[in-house]
């Protein structure tokens, strides 16, 4: 068996475990899904009330795709926080696995979970707004941007996962704050041009800004991805750099945690 296939097989441990957790916490999962659907509907209804189909579609896209990106980010970032709370972190760290394998498994589950979650919201919104005109939409552009953006969010999620590794309780809080900041600066429900100039600087380092812009232009204006290079190249650069950076940074954080004794269960 090659090293690669063995690592892929081992990474399935995290996919299966996270599936078991989702299944056991099905009540919370359902509640979270209902909340997400209600939130997306509420925001979209602002566009419907304005009688502006372009605004409606723009808000819908923001709600749906932000949901996807934030779910992927949360699952990866919280994979360590959950182990902290349960006290199993030391056992996972003791296992003969590469950290990249662990992060790969968590990432794969996060993406699948995010896609399923988002698909449900998408279906509900389409049923709720049958008047939507998607004749000009270019779904290939939308799918391509979601895939490209996933790489960047996986990388950011890996970096964010360091926080609960090093800080037992505050780590999860800091992850939550980071996610909130991304929501604020990425133009999820409005154009980033209305943000103060200093905040617009932050917008340009958030991958969500490019994902949402690309998806909107693809679905609302039907622009093919070949005409959106200005949104594509930042995502390519971020995807290529953030994942290796995330794995490297996580390894450094693990060594620091082992040196200072921060892996130990508390409470």
């Amino acid at each position, binding site marked *: 068996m090659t090293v690669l296939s063995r690592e892929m097989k081992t990474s399935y*441990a995290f996919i299966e*475990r996270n599936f078991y957790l989702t299944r056991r916490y099905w009540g919370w999962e359902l509640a979270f899904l209902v909340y997400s659907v209600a939130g997306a509907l509420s925001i979209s209804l602002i566009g419907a009330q304005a009688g502006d189909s372009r605004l409606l579609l723009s808000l819908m896209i923001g709600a749906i795709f932000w949901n996807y990106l934030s779910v992927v980010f949360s699952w990866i970032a919280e994979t360590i926080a959950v182990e902290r709370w349960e006290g199993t972190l030391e056992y*996972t760290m*003791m*296992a*003969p696995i590469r950290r990249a394998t662990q992060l790969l498994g968590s990432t794969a589950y996060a993406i699948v979970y995010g896609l399923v979650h988002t698909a449900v919201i998408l279906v509900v919104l389409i049923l709720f707004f049958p008047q939507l005109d998607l004749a000009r939409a270019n779904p290939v552009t939308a799918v391509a941007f979601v895939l490209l953006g996933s790489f960047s969010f996986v990388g950011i999620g890996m970096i964010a996962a360091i926080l609960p590794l090093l800080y037992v*309780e*505050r780590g999860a809080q800091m992850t939550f704050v980071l996610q909130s900041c991304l929501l604020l600066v990425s133009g999820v429900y409005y154009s980033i041009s209305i943000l103060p100039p200093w905040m617009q600087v932050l917008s340009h380092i958030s991958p969500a800004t490019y994902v949402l812009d690309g998806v909107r232009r693809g679905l609302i204006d039907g622009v093919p991805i070949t005409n959106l290079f200005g949104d594509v190249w930042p995502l390519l650069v971020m995807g290529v750099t953030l994942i290796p950076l995330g794995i490297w940074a996580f390894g450094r954080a693990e060594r620091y945690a*082992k040196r200072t*004794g921060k892996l130990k269960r508390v409470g």
Partner: protein
Amino acid sequence: MTTAFSPQQNQAKPGTPPAALVVDHATKRFVVADKRRPVVAIDDVSMRLERGEIYGILGSNGSGKSTLIRLICGLLTLDSGRVEIFGHDLVREELAVKRLINRVSVDAAFFKKLSPFENLSFAARLYGLEAGSARVAALKILGRLGISERRADRPIEQMSRGMQQKVAIARALLTSPSLLLLDEPTTGLDPRSKLDVQTFIEELRTDHDATIVLTTHDLAEADRLCDRISILNDGRKVVEATPTGLKLLVAERHDQPATLEAAFMTYTGRSLDDDHEPTEDANEPD
């Protein structure tokens, strides 16, 4: 230090199989936020275990027992010294070492909403075991520990503390570790559960050829199970001998009753129930 062991014994003779565990002058310090000088949690500790041995580590709370176990597991890095497991260096051959060891700690840490089988399945996959064979092996081990197949599919949070600890032991055994580190595995268990676990530990050596490091506060348990015992005090190994040797030592040299309790009190300067500043908790995790 009074001991039947010297650091020179850490060197394997040519042609002989490697020792199960070699800890060579291990030292670990922690920086405490409100203290300028680091706290020495493990201070120049050396030990050598042969294959199939059950080695007990005694010491009061905060003496460094759990820190030493964490160092051997690779959950903490050494400031100085060396750990070798079956000839593999812990730092240079980390993955090889991890495949050979497993640990049971005093707190049975699990995903509490998941069932014993789901928790064990996760552990098995991490160690590269097939799900099907892992389930068969898990059920066999759980059955031996008195946990039925029906019970193995219900959330672990519904189990008693003793049952959870048995599942923790099953999790460690599932990976067939050559070196098993048991960190107070029977603390908090009722007498029957404690006896079950102790009997099982004896079986592990005879049936599974496992080498075992056992930390415990239960001197009768140490006397029953251990081939050799060392006592840690303030991170230093102060004595090492067989249980019988330790009793003789304290009687002959210190004019105390020939019991492990007398040995413990003599070499730590306190009774089993005394607490003092916990050096292994000195690190501030948050």
